[in-house]
């Protein structure tokens, strides 16, 4: 028996088991919990790369849990889309785990570090499970695993505001998850199946059924809360602001991205593109909402004083970009969306990591206090600047590539109004990042001279992400090539 045959399930099992091992091994020495987390996320990353390569060699991988044949058993599916997102998410999780120990050691009481890593691994397991599963009820279970772990991680923040942020997120997140559960129930009621591929076969006959449409409505609202699409974003800014730095980075870089992935799965795999474009023109609503999200997120970000809150609002705008690409539903726009998932994970992850390093060294989060930080922490600020440039969408960064494809997709769909939306929002993000960059490099006073740069253990991960922004910006053909296959697969009617 070949072990690589079981890779699809191991990618979930490894973080899940390590969540149990960490409390045990953490009793010996606290640092061992961190070692286990690194080993687990790194092996998940390697496995996901191997899976993606297998997909390119042999096509779609279908893994039957317990050898029960789908649609009766649970199926794990790796195709171009899930393979790509798996690589992105497990990579980010690995990088942030490597970074985490110093920041966690400073921000979290010592006796809570071991449980923190345990919950951290549960969160990662939930996300990876959401990506790989081909069963819609299994998707719900993994959504709840990652969400529950997420609430606990956010509540680990230093200030008491973190508790309220986590509580509000819990209430909204539970409403969202229950809506998704209800949607699943409606689909099961009329089709009698929970397997995504099987649903895809059976649903077209029922597209006129009110039950199916109601189910779709529940999915839409539930997932929109989970991804914080504009009018449903209320939980996000507080959650990202008050969470520990590491959790802020992890949540911002992965959680909403995986939510968007689940949305793509529901819209294009469970339902067919034809359903969202013609039968129920929900894509029109999404186009409108995403345009509002793009502009509103950027405008709100300009007004913020706390840098983490600014980045959180900017995340809401970036989610708008991704949803815009999905709603335009042509090949270029979906490539744009998928690259923006990679892109936003790299940039926002990197930016939050730098902010975490600043908090670690100085405790500053107010943008006005950043004056002169460029002299004191030159390397950290260089990584921040690269992330910011990519966020604005300067050529040669990966931010440019996704915006280019999104604009191209908008033109191909004949919706040229969205091109100025993308441009205006890029200008607005230049405005809010300029505020920070200006303080960092062109103002002198403020940060005391004794502050030096962050330790290498924090700098290296932040720089890796910043370097990836540039590497994939120049070698853009790599993500474009992979996501091109994914987009074609999704649009096949």
């Amino acid at each position, binding site marked *: 028996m070949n072990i690589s045959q079981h890779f699809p399930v191991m990618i979930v099992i490894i973080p899940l088991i390590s969540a149990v091992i960490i409390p045990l091994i953490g009793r010996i020495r606290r640092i061992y919990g961190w070692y286990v987390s690194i080993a687990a996320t790194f092996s998940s990353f390697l496995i996901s790369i191997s899976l993606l390569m297998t997909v390119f060699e042999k096509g779609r991988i279908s893994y039957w849990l317990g050898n029960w044949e789908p649609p009766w058993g649970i199926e794990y599916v790796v195709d171009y889309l899930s393979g790509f997102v798996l690589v992105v998410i497990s990579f980010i999780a690995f990088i942030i785990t490597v970074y985490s120990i110093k920041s966690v050691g400073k921000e979290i009481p010592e006796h809570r570090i071991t449980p923190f890593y345990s919950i951290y691994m549960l969160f990662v397991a939930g996300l990876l499970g959401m990506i790989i599963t081909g069963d819609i*009820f299994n998707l*719900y*279970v993994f959504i*709840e695993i990652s969400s*529950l772990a997420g*609430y*606990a991680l956010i*509540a680990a923040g230093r200030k*008491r*505001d973190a*508790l*309220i942020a*986590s*509580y509000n997120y*819990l*209430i909204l997140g*539970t*409403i969202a*998850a*229950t809506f998704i*559960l*209800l949607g699943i*129930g409606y689909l*099961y*009621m009329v089709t009698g199946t929970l397997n995504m591929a099987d649903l895809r076969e059976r649903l077209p006959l029922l597209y006129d059924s009110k039950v199916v449409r109601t189910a779709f409505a529940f999915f839409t609202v539930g997932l929109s809360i989970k991804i914080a699409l504009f009018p449903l974003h209320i939980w996000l800014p507080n959650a990202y602001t008050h969470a520990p730095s590491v959790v802020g980075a992890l949540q911002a870089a992965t959680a909403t991205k995986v939510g968007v992935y689940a949305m793509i799965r529901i819209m294009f795999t469970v339902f067919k593109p034809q359903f969202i474009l013609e039968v129920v023109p929900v894509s029109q609503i999404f186009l409108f909402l995403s345009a509002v999200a793009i502009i509103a997120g950027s405008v709100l970000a300009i007004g913020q004083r706390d840098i983490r809150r600014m980045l959180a609002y900017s995340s809401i705008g970036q989610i708008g970009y991704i949803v815009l690409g999905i709603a335009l539903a042509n090949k270029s726009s979906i490539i744009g969306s998928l690259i923006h998932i990679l892109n936003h994970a790299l940039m926002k992850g990197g930016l939050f990591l730098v902010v975490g390093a600043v908090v670690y060294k100085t405790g500053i989060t107010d943008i006005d206090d950043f004056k002169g930080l460029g002299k004191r922490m030159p390397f950290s600020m260089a990584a921040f600047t690269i992330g910011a440039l990519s966020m604005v969408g300067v050529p040669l960064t990966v931010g440019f590539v996704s915006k280019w494809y999104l604009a191209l997709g908008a033109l191909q769909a004949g919706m040229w109004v969205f091109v100025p939306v993308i441009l205006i929002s890029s200008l607005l993000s230049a405005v809010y990042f300029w505020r920070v960059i200006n303080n960092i490099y062109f103002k002198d006073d403020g940060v005391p001279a004794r502050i030096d740069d962050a330790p290498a253990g924090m700098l290296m991960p932040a720089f890796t992400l910043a370097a990836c922004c540039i590497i994939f910006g120049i070698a853009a053909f790599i993500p474009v090539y992979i996501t091109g296959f994914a987009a074609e697969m999704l649009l096949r009617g």
Partner: protein
Amino acid sequence: MIEIFLGKYNYWIYITLMMIGFYAMIAKHNLIKKIIGMNIFQTAVFLFYISIAKVKGGTAPIVWEEAIQYDNPLPHVLILTAIVVSVSTTAVALALIIRIYKAYGSIEEDKILEMNN
């Protein structure tokens, strides 16, 4: 008309319960009451699942010679999972409320918001 109300009474029950729970989650200021609302909200969906599992004339899905038809056991199993999720969510929420009470000395949302400002 009567057909709509009585013939599908299970749906009416679940919708009513769900809305009661939803109202409590949104409108109540007490954090514990919100959680009670959340439980009603989730339980309503569980009842919906259980009710769609019923087959006319079916018995419990256990092998039995006299059985003509069995109820669908799958929704029951799904809901067992969902109940576990619901219990865990409640546990996390209650743990949060305990810490909120220690930090703020209150579990009334308006008072907490006042303290934050």
